[in-house]
């Protein structure tokens, strides 16, 4: 039994691989699972080029659309030419479809202006990148970021374009009012390539956008409009905000039909104020040239052109023109005339007829030709204010002015002029002054002076003479009268004697006596006249009977 081999004891076989390997396997599966999930959830990586990366941090700055995070900035670096900033961002998968060609990105930063505060949350949370989806369907991964955030995003409404020569106090975000209701905003402005005008982009929210029609006029409602009229002082403002930050307003002029709703991006002219917008329908602006033969000092660009006293246009340029044909220089004034203003000023009845004149070029020309050639419509410089010496151009009828032909073939037709009443008056006054100037006033003065001196002398001597006459003649006269008295007494005695003799029947004697008596009566009458005269005017003894006293 001993030689029997002993059975070997084989230790129970254990599987070489223990269940414990499930743990690393599990860990690996979970880790890989998360990795796969992450990979699958990962959206596209996009690149946005900005001019500056203000407050943008890699790994922190989110990209938000409607305040929802749709991605995150992963890297911020300069572009290869160091001119711009290239921001790499990971976009969440759910927002991948938004990354189309015309999508907009901009940096949202806190903005505090008078019109409001925006991006306040960024003060605490830091700047973020705003996003606005585009309409395109072409997906892209490289974008150019906007420097200026779009004012409105994702709001219904329409955009329009205004052209103006002067931005005034408008800025992005300036309000737009329609009947004092804020209905939109200025979304941007851009200087035109020629540098002569500015295009202002505006956005009018729905449903107000339908009030913007083809005949709408926009005007700058910034500031305060103070006007002094017969009814006192009028202060007109849109709102306090508009006063401070500027604003726009629009409306349809009362004399125009409302028109159809304006299409998107329709271009409008921006008027400087309400009055201009409501009164100056620029579309039909006709230019005319005036050649004055007088000084245009006091006539400035923008001076009104009045038609029969009503403003109908304005002066657009004042300058000199060398007239080679006539060989002189004369002022050349260009005016612009708005025929529509005439319609605005005209009554309802006339409006229809005037409308034809506005719209039909041929008819308008004929009308103006008639005015100028037949009625004698002439331009004239008039003084608007005597104090400031400002001039304006007045179009009035001067039927007596020489006939002219209106030439519409020139690029700017010329309206004939008449001298200004002021110049006329000046000429007349001048000629009067000249005449006065030519009079020998000095010589006349001298003569008069001499005459007066002579007169003075004469009077003095006359006075002396009279005095002397008084002194010398009066005593003589007295004795004369006494003598006369004595004579009369003698005569009386003689008469008495004569009476006695005359009563005698001797007729001849009586006749002679009667004659003698008659003679004597006459002598006595003369003597009496003389004495009366002498009584009244003793000087008549010297000067004679009838000569008036004194004088030259």
């Amino acid at each position, binding site marked *: 039994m001993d030689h029997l081999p002993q059975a070997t004891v084989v230790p129970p076989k254990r599987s070489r*691989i*223990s269940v*414990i*390997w499930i*743990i*690393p396997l*599990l*860990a*690996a599966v979970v*880790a890989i699972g*998360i*990795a796969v999930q992450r990979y699958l959830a990962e959206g596209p990586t996009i690149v946005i080029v900005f001019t500056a990366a203000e407050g943008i941090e890699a790994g*922190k700055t*989110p990209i938000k659309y409607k305040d929802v995070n749709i991605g995150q900035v992963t890297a911020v670096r300069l572009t290869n030419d160091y001119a711009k900033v290239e921001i790499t961002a990971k976009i969440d998968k759910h927002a991948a479809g938004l990354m189309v060609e015309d999508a907009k990105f901009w940096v949202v930063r806190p903005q505090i202006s008078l019109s409001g505060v925006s991006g306040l*949350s960024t003060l*605490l*949370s*830091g700047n*973020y990148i705003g996003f606005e989806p585009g309409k395109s369907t072409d997906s892209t991964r490289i974008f150019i970021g906007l420097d200026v955030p779009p004012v409105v995003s994702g709001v219904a409404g329409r955009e329009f374009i205004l052209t103006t020569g002067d931005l005034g106090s408008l800025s992005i975000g300036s309000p737009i009012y329609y009947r004092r209701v804020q209905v939109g905003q200025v979304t941007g402005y851009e200087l035109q390539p020629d540098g002569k005008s500015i295009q202002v982009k505006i956005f009018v929210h729905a449903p107000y956008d339908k009030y913007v029609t083809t005949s709408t006029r926009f005007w700058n409602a910034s500031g305060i409009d103070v006007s002094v009229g017969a009814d006192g002082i009028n202060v007109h403002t849109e709102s306090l905000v508009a006063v401070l930050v500027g604003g726009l307003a629009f409306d349809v002029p009362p004399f125009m039909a409302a028109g159809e709703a304006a299409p998107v991006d329709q271009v409008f002219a921006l008027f400087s104020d309400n009055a201009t917008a409501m009164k100056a329908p620029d579309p039909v602006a006709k230019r005319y040239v005036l050649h004055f033969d007088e000084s245009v000092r006091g006539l400035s660009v923008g001076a009104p052109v009045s038609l029969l006293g009503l403003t109908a246009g304005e002066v657009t340029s004042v300058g000199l023109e060398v007239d080679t044909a006539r060989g002189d220089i004369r002022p050349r004034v260009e005016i612009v005339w708005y025929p529509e203003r005439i319609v605005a000023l005209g009554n309802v009845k006339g409006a229809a007829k005037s409308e034809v004149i506005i719209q039909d070029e041929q008819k308008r020309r004929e009308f103006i030709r008639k005015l100028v050639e037949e009625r004698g419509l002439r331009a004239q410089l008039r003084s608007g204010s005597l104090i400031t010496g400002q001039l304006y151009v007045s179009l009035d009828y001067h039927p007596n002015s020489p006939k002219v032909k209106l030439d519409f073939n020139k690029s700017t037709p010329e309206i004939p002029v008449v001298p200004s009443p002021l110049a006329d008056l000046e000429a007349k006054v001048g000629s009067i002054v000249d005449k006065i100037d030519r009079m020998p006033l000095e010589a006349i003065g001298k003569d008069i002076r001499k005459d007066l001196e002579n007169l003075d002398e004469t009077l003095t001597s006359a006075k002396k003479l009279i005095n002397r006459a008084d002194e010398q003649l009066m005593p003589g006269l007295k004795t004369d009268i006494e003598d006369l008295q004595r004579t009369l007494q003698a005569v009386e005695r003689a008469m008495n004697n004569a009476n006695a003799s005359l009563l005698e029947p001797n007729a001849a004697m009586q006749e002679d006596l009667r004659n003698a008596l008659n003679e004597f009566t006459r002598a006595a009458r003369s003597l009496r006249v003389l004495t009366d005269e002498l009584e009244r005017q003793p000087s008549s003894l010297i000067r004679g009977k009838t000569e008036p006293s004194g004088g030259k």
Partner: protein
Amino acid sequence: MSVATLSAARAGIVSCLTCGLLSRPAAAEPGYCRRCGAKLAWRKHHSVQYTWAFLIAAAICYIPANALPVLGTTALGSTEFDTIIGGVIFLYKTGSWPLALIVLVASIMIPLGKIVALSWLLITVQRGWARNAHDRARLYRLVEFIGKWSMLDVFVDAFTVALVQLSPLMSVEPGLGVVFFMAVVVLTMLAAQSFDPRLIWDSSAERGAHGG
């Protein structure tokens, strides 16, 4: 026979890992300790394999633990997720470099060090290296001792999340990374525990006859 080459197993006796009592093993299986009742084993069951498994699992988890954010801080509307290394960099940049150092050591270097140390121990045991047995034993003790400190991060995370809930001003939420980080810590601790340090001495005498 030097001290280094002598071991209980070679002498045909088995030591209790709990109370250290040496006993003669039962017939087939070593049986149970007479004093404390713990299960006796010549060497830990599948020690090397278990340790490897835990280590590999820990190493796998170590990647997401560092790559994924451990903490999400929501302050005033913006949420920031921070990874461990991100936190270290943030602390260092803001000037608190001692804190940064603590976090760096406790959260990054210690787990990594444990994985590397245990791997090295395993490789040397498997290869039967006899040298530096003392150093390796010391290393193992260090790994065991240091292991629990790695949970620091997890605790900080848990406390922060629980305390900082000042919604809407500020709130903190845990990130997925912290789960993996905790897994790393737990797995490395398990690995350290499943490693039988007696293997270090076995190899210095004889190639792992009893090892798994």
